[in-house]
């Protein structure tokens, strides 16, 4: 074979060999386990909230023992309701995972509570199922290969306040001089995510003659709250109570501007009901 042809042929073969090696070296780590993604699934990730937002933290560790850098790793999410309306959108920034390194990516999903106005009521007291579109993308093999992974998963948010009860069998009447109070015990449960947050409880007593008294209290949420409210009642209401009558109680819990009310009735006072 003539020399110029031989050189050209060798050049072509060398080029093709280089491309083949690029492909082989990009596949090998996948087979040997050189690329690893660990998601900390303990406690379903860490979650927290404040008055304005909810945060879900998923620490993701990406280990790259391959040949090429993994560039522009991006995790983004979109939360949509049942009608497909977009409620929340967010993403991590671009992260690079160089060769031989282990990078911990703090994937934080922050949901602004105001963005969930349409489903907030349902979310706080009953829980709501939303759809989360998760999108993961990255570049590999000298940015020649783009890998993408999209998944739709159901995301259940809430309920935060459950099992609201007013213990009408334990109500009591107290007097301090000319002032009279009805002691009404109540209880409810709270999700771990919401513990430590501020809420308010409102208790209103009424009878056939109208409102006897009401009170609003600010409380700090705990995983299980068992407490009582002191409802101030008027002297006339007190006099009626002593004689014996049915009392209606409306107990409300307000959290994140959402209110749920539980109604009850009890008989208090002398004489038979």
């Amino acid at each position: 074979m003539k020399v110029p042809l031989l050189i050209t042929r060798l050049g072509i073969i060398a080029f093709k060999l280089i491309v083949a090696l690029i492909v082989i070296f990009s596949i090998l780590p996948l087979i040997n386990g050189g690329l690893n993604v660990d998601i900390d699934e303990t406690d379903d990730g860490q979650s927290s909230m404040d008055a304005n937002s909810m945060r879900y933290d998923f620490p993701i560790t990406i280990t790259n023992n391959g040949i090429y850098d993994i560039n522009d790793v991006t995790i983004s999410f979109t939360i949509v309701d049942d009608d497909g309306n977009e409620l929340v959108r967010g993403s991590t920034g671009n992260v690079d995972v160089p060769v031989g390194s282990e990078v911990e990516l703090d994937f934080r999903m922050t949901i602004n509570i105001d963005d969930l106005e349409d489903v907030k009521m349902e979310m706080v007291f009953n829980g709501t199922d939303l759809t989360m579109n998760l999108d993961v993308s990255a570049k590999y093999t000298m940015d020649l290969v783009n890998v993408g992974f999209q998944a739709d998963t159901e995301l259940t948010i809430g309920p935060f306040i459950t099992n609201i009860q007013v213990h009408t069998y334990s109500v009591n009447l107290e007097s301090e001089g000319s002032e009279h109070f009805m002691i009404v015990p109540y209880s409810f449960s709270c999700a771990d995510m919401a513990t430590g947050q501020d809420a308010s409880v409102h208790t209103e007593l009424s009878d056939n003659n109208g409102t006897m008294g009401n009170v609003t209290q600010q409380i700090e949420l705990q995983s299980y709250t068992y407490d009582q409210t002191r409802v101030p009642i008027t002297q006339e209401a007190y006099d009626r109570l002593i004689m014996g009558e049915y009392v209606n109680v409306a107990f409300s819990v307000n959290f994140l501007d959402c209110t749920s009310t539980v109604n009850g009735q009890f008989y208090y006072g002398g004489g038979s009901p």
Partner: protein
Amino acid sequence: MNFGEFDRKFVKLGDGLKSVVLHAVKYLVLPLFFVVFFSFFLMKMDTMETIGGIVSEMQPLVLIFGIVISAVGFFKGAYPKGSYSRLTFATAVAILTILYVWSLLLGGGLQEAVNDEIFELDLMSLFMLYMVGALFNTFLPLAEFIDHRHAWLERSEQVAPREKESADGHLWYHDFHLRYGSMFNGIVLSRRSANKFVIVPLIVIILLKAGLTSLDIDEIDALTSSLDDAYYVMLYLGLAITAISFFKGFYPKGSFSRFLPALIVVLISMYWVWTIGLEGKFVIDAADVVTFTLDYTGILLLMVCGTGLWGVYYAVELWTYRREWKEGGFQKDALEGEKKKKKVKRERKSKPTEEPIPPQQNVQP
């Protein structure tokens, strides 16, 4: 008795023996080895016993056809290129080979056994693809005859030798004259292209599809459907490449008539690579919930560029061989190659053997 071109005066025993050995290895020894080995191996496996039995039934067919083809192959090799005798025996070998392969299907028995014990595989489609290559082999002896006929008649002094063509007045489009072409080289290159771009890829697709279909998984329905699309695209592109490759091989190196078809083949091959690479995107959709996307357009474009570099190769080939081809009198490649081999043989024979130098003796004054 004069048997014309079949006369034994034209027979070269040495060439005949070389030919019979080659044919025996290709059509008798190797197939027999594989048939015996696979039937023994398959019969040992519980799930493949039937196929092993079927394969062992091929042994007598391999023996009979192998011996017959080897015997005919002797005559094919013994007679010179360009003679009717060689054409006859070479065509007989090609037709016998087709019958040989057809007989190994055992009248559908092999198909049944494979379907029962492995997966649904259309052996008839595979045989039809084999037939494409076999048809080329059937025309090869005729092409060889056409290429070498005049040279053989010249050697046997039945026609006057052709005059060397002058390069004066020869323009680039004159390269397309049919007299410069070699049918044999054209068909050989066409067959090679058919194997590379049509037969082998389609066999791979048929086997892949049969294997994937046997898995019966919904998620790969899209993949098998894309294999169907790829099948037809590769068939049409492959046939185009095969057809144009004929002209690339037909015309000699250094001619524009070879360079231009070669360039067209390179361009189509680049598109072929792009298509076989699924245009750089691979998507798996699982139950409409999870989608995995692999975009390797960058790597695929590198492969396409690698294929495109062959255009440069053919340009260098044109530049390298053009002057030599012109000065050589615009010879066909097939005859040119033979002339070079004969020239080397003549030079080896004419070189005198060196006698050993005797040791120097001391001369007394």
